């Protein structure tokens, strides 16, 4: 995690080598080129304004995916567990903030000023903390006791926790999708013929701030260093005096903070939330994490962005019924052609 240099050096691992590797690479490039060509013809058909519009939406979608993917990749990097409940923590962020917004005195169609921005910030902070507490409790209850159990046991509890959270949200808000208060001002700017709303800008800025903050934290802080060490070799880290339990809990905490922020921004931009929102978003975000090289935080951020681009472009130019198929096909192809992801992943050792 974080160790990009090391990951890239490992990328040319023994998994693929020589001619087969090169042939697979060529196959991947041919596929990408074919897709780009097809996309190009559609893009020309629809004109440049539409392209730019789609691109702006795609960046916002990708940012949200990136925030969720970061949590997956950090948790996988440190304990090699696919945290199925992570997507539901994201959905919980959306639900919790939907209730917090009126509680903090924000309402639809109000006048915006410095104080309202503070109110929104407070919503962000409280939601992120709630998600973090939730995720850390999940780790404490369902994963920590099973750290020495067979590998599949924590996976099943993760699935169980995912069901539990979905069930809790189902109980809370019922089966149909609920309205999320549309509090952001209805302002928009026109850039080169495409509309950019406050919603998109909020998502971009928040994501950039969070991801840069995370990168600095992982690279510079003591705890970040401990997390990198634990991800690399848990035993050695423990022998060096690192408190493993605390470090792992911190990883879950940070992952949930990011997912919570993603949940709020999802709600703010789409103004709807449903109890099983976390399932599909989680799958896509997980794909993004794999795409970028699981265990690698920069990879997850870029993977989220790329998947947001792919999905939004596909929805914009092709039949959206196929967009999930495309995303998962990409997932499979990435693993077949480039098993280390685009930036390289920590190869788990047995």
């Amino acid at each position, binding site marked *: 995690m974080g160790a990009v240099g090391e990951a890239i050096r490992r990328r040319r691992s023994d998994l693929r080598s020589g001619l087969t590797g090169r042939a697979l690479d060529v196959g991947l490039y041919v596929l990408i080129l074919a897709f780009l060509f097809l996309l190009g013809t559609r893009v020309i058909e629809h004109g440049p304004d539409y392209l730019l519009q789609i691109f702006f939406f795609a960046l916002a979608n990708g940012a949200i995916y990136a925030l969720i993917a970061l949590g997956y990749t950090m948790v996988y990097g440190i304990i090699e567990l696919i945290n199925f409940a992570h997507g539901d923590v994201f959905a919980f962020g959306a639900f919790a903030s939907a209730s917090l917004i009126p509680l903090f005195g924000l309402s639809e169609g109000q006048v915006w000023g410095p104080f309202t921005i503070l109110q929104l910030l407070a919503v962000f902070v409280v939601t992120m903390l709630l998600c973090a507490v939730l995720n850390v409790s999940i780790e404490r209850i369902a994963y920590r006791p099973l750290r020495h159990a067979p590998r599949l046991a924590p996976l099943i509890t993760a699935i169980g926790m995912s069901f539990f959270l*979905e069930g809790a949200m189902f109980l809370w808000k019922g089966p149909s999708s609920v309205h999320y208060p549309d509090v952001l001002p209805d302002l928009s700017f026109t850039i080169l013929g495409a509309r950019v709303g406050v919603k998109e800008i909020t998502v971009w800025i928040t994501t950039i701030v969070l991801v840069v903050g995370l990168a600095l934290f992982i690279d510079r802080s003591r705890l970040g260093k401990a997390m990198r060490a634990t991800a690399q070799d848990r035993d050695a880290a423990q022998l060096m005096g690192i408190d493993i339990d605390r470090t792992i809990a911190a990883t879950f905490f940070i992952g949930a903070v990011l997912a919570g922020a993603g949940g709020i921004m999802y709600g703010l931009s789409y103004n709807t939330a449903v109890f099983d929102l976390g399932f599909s978003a989680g799958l896509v975000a997980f794909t993004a994490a794999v795409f970028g090289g699981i265990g690698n935080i920069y990879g997850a951020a870029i993977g989220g962005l790329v998947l947001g681009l792919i999905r939004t472009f596909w929805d914009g130019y092709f039949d959206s019924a196929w967009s999930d198929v495309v995303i998962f096909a990409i997932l499979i192809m990435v693993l077949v052609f480039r098993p280390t992801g685009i930036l390289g992943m920590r190869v788990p050792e047995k």
Partner: protein
Amino acid sequence: MIGWFRRVWENDPRKDPNAVVYFLLAIFAVLFPLFASVVTGGSPNFLLSVAGDAGVYVLLTLGLNVVVGMAGLLDLGYAAFFAIGAYTYAFIASDHLAVTPLQTTLHVPFWIVLLIALFVAASFGVILGAPTLRLRGDYLAIVTLGFGEIVPRVFKNTSTWTSGVNGISALDTPELPIWFKGPWSGDPLAVVQNFKIFDPLGYYVIMVVLLVICVVLVRNLQNSRMGRAWAAIREDEVAAAAMGVNTVQAKLLAFAIGAAFSGFAGTFYGAKLSLVSPENFGFSVSITVLVMVVLGGMGNIPGVMLGSLLIYLVIFMVLPSLPDTVTSIANAIGLTGLTQASGDFPGIGEFAARLKFLIFGLILVLVMLLRPQGLLPSREREQELTKGTHDDTIIEDVQAETG
């Protein structure tokens, strides 16, 4: 007599620690129709039909057990092969092809489709597995997850071929070329040709026969050279390769066999339900089967069968009946007010219905926390766990010494 039995029991080198469980399961399977008709007072059809559906899950669990339990490969998209098996039957054993661009129909008999579906599903397993099985660890889980998401969506979206969300209905009924009518069905004794299997008892019998075949097959596989190779790979892939096990080939075979079982189950499922729809093969099916395997006790055949029956009971019988049960209890103890919706409270029946996910999640977490090795694990696995062969022993020794 008893002495002889004891001697055989204790000295037979092929003695299987699970023999008693198999024996009990067999007796249970034979007596179940009788039991069902006694309990329901002579109309066992519903229970038998449910048992047939449960059998589908037992079959799926047996197959996934080969992949996950024996070879140690995590498959998160097992339902894809189930779907492929079911759609294979739907395509070649119904009138459906007439409404596709092919404009003809095929009516291949059920028994032959069982084999065809087996090979089709296994082929897909090989196609998916060949490029990905050389990868390590969880990559396979991720690839299968993706595949499991793709397959139902493809069936859903290619509606000119598959009728999309509506699915394909009116699939053929399994048929025996020759069968006997007699007093047991209330007819005079006679030979019937092209006997169609309509009643749940017929499906139940087919299911039991399929299960017996599969259990024998899986058990023999586990004790074969390949089974030992799988166990070696599961425990340590590098060591297995060093000992001369062709790991890619062995993993591919496990994967293909698992897929074949799933295809098998899919065909039966399609025939029994007489309908296939993409909605029936989602991620939740894959997860349910995986949960059955892990919860029952990975790698142990009776364990996973028990696990699948228990989970089936919980998911498809106990939880769906929960709202009615709770409502009737509330009525019985005089809290009729609770059964009405008031304000945000939707009434206790609906409330219980909404609790379903939550309870199931809770059960999964609790059972795994209490018995991470599963309910009925194989003997070797239990020993491994209690002896603690995990990596952190050094650290724990150090901790013990330093206090």
